[in-house]
């Protein structure tokens, strides 16, 4: 069973029913994969969905539906992750948001993080996390 971390990029892909994101959700459904969603990615995605004119209720339904899956775990930004995120940001010179999301994936044992962010690619190059995009 694979565990994947979701950056905001993946969540936006999913909202838009992009084919690969949809396939990943199908993998989650069959139990082949589990998904980890970091709280900072929830905040970022919510803001973007609001900017796109989506009503709060619709966005809230999206999160509730993801939460209702036993194979999807929302991970709060707790102290260990926050401190690790700060360290990664400092050490590798990446923005704090990227570092917090990557740290969440790392500390929750994700096999890969779904992201197309160029700074995530830097962290992948430095072998901090494995990054997948399409």
């Amino acid at each position, binding site marked *: 069973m694979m565990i994947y971390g979701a950056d*905001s*990029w993946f969540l*936006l*892909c*999913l*909202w*838009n*029913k*992009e084919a690969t994101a*949809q396939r990943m*959700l*199908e993998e*989650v*459904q*069959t139990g082949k994969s589990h998904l980890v969603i970091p709280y900072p990615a929830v905040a*970022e995605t919510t803001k*973007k969905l609001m*900017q*796109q*004119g*989506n009503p709060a209720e*619709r966005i809230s*339904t*999206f999160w509730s*539906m*993801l939460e*209702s*899956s*036993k*194979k999807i775990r929302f991970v709060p930004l707790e102290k260990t992750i926050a401190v690790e995120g700060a360290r990664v940001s400092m050490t590798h*010179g*990446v*923005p*704090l*948001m*990227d570092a917090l999301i990557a740290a969440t994936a790392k500390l929750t044992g994700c096999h890969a993080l779904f992201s*197309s*962010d*160029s*700074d995530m690619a830097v962290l992948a190059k430095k072998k901090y996390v494995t990054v997948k995009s399409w």
Partner: protein
Amino acid sequence: MKKRREKIMFTDVVKMGKKGQITLPKLVRDEENYRDGDEFTLSQMPGGDLMLHKITEKTPEEKLLDFLETVPKFDWRKAFREIEEERNRER
């Protein structure tokens, strides 16, 4: 979740057992992925025909995909580029 492929109409003769039991042909069970313990609704039509319908509880992931059919789409690549720019401003 899998897309159903086009199906042809299927007709077969089945025999009722002593307690009114009828066995669904294997071809149909395999095709529809019916398993022991699956529940069905049986409806009698006005003309007397019987209609069998499998009761399915959708998974949370299926419900999510149904929900996503109803939401307006946008240029998510552009949206993520904006997120990336915002992240970089806070570097």
